[in-house]
């Protein structure tokens, strides 16, 4: 037993190199959430923080597991522009600062992420002139995510796939957003599905589905509108392909994360403030090797 422990201790001191195919979680899907409808256009800045705890099985059974913590910081410029009365365009440009911390050091990946553009059509909307106490709006549409983010090459490059600022692929998004309001209360359901494609290194991130349901209530006090909200969000990702043309499916990627979220929006004249906090309640990600720990968002909006 002592001999075995000694050999493990020696192995820890030896050199190694590894491309962690498990660590962290690939880019989260872009949700729209509860959208203020009282102005046609807005621009905003949003900060998002996410953290994960990862564990990778040793390459050989006698090697220790590789443990790490991943921190994702995203500062995103986004905005909405109405074109006519039925179509809204949304644009997103993220900047990312991601860290992977292990016992032996920290790896940092920073730079612009993948920009995306969504076009949403108003499918159903209660007319502004309606006397109905219950009003609703359904938006549906799609968009594209461009590979504007920085990234290294493929899975055999010695770099982590899930913590890079860009995916390197053109992805296509389907999205729907429904809001029902009755008096001062309401609920919002938001869903998006991202169809991924391969990047130049033949790596393909798994398709992603995100669904969120939130209840909210709003008060108006003088020029202020306060809108607390609470709900759930579920993200589901298929497995990644290390090499799509060879169909090398990486079973240690993908999975589901379900968060309980709580937050608030405050509006004052043309200004808006949004914040939310989420903790995972059910999850099984990367075959259980990755655990989401928390997520927080803070954002400012300016209505035009």
């Amino acid at each position, binding site marked *: 037993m002592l001999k075995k422990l000694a*050999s493990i201790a*020696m*192995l820890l001191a*030896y*050199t*190694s*190199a*590894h*491309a*962690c*195919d498990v660590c962290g979680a690939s880019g989260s899907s872009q949700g729209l959430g509860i959208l203020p409808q009282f102005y046609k256009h807005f621009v905003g800045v949003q900060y998002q923080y996410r953290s994960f705890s990862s564990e*990778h*099985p040793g*390459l*050989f*059974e006698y*090697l220790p597991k590789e443990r790490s913590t991943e921190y994702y910081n995203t500062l995103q410029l986004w905005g909405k522009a109405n074109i006519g009365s039925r179509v809204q365009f949304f644009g997103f440009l993220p900047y990312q600062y991601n860290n992977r911390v292990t016992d032996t050091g920290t790896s940092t990946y920073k730079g612009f992420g993948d920009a995306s553009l969504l076009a949403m059509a108003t499918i159903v909307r209660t007319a502004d002139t309606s006397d109905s106490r219950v009003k609703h709006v359904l938006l549906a549409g799609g968009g594209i995510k461009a590979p504007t983010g920085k990234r290294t090459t493929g*899975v*055999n490059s*010695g770099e982590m796939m899930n913590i890079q600022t860009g995916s390197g692929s053109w992805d296509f998004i389907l999205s729907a957003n429904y809001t029902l309001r009755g008096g001062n209360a309401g609920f919002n359901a938001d869903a998006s599905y991202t169809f991924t494609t391969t990047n130049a290194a033949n790596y393909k991130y*798994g*398709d992603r*589905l995100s*669904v969120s349901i939130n209840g909210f209530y709003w008060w108006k006090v003088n020029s202020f509108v306060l809108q607390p909200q609470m709900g*759930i969000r*579920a993200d*589901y990702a*298929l*497995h990644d392909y*290390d*090499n799509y043309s*060879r*169909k*090398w*499916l*990486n079973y240690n990627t993908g999975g*589901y994360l*379900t968060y309980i979220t709580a937050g608030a929006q405050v509006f004052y004249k043309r200004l808006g403030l949004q914040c939310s906090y989420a903790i995972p*309640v*059910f999850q099984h990600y990367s075959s259980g090797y990755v655990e989401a720990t928390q997520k927080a968002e803070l954002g400012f909006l300016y209505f035009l």
Partner: protein
Amino acid sequence: MKLLKQLTVIIAGAVAFASCQKHDDTPAQADKVVINITSLQDGQAFRKGDTLKIQGLISYISQLHGYEMKLTSKKTSKELFYYYEHTHSDKVSFSQSWVDTLSTADSLVLTLTAEIDHEGNQGSKQLTLTSQP
């Protein structure tokens, strides 16, 4: 809470079912691992102070998960050098070196092992080398 969990599992199951992912189902075949050490030959002799360059290529019919290399003294069974790399490809090149510091004559065994999967399937190759002070 129970309903929420059921909902999550149903959504996850439905999506997984709807999008059954194609995958390479090549069975693990250890005899198909080819390890080509280009910088060393079996029986090659070294002297104290020489640098052993361990270079070459590992190839396989499907995806490899990584490899390790060990240099062991036959006389003492002590591990003189160890290196492992976690990588994902069907062609993995390697290039490491070790400086001979032994002060007595010894036979050395260099073992390269390629890991096919995390279930323990692997292929390996050994060379015997000689160290002369």
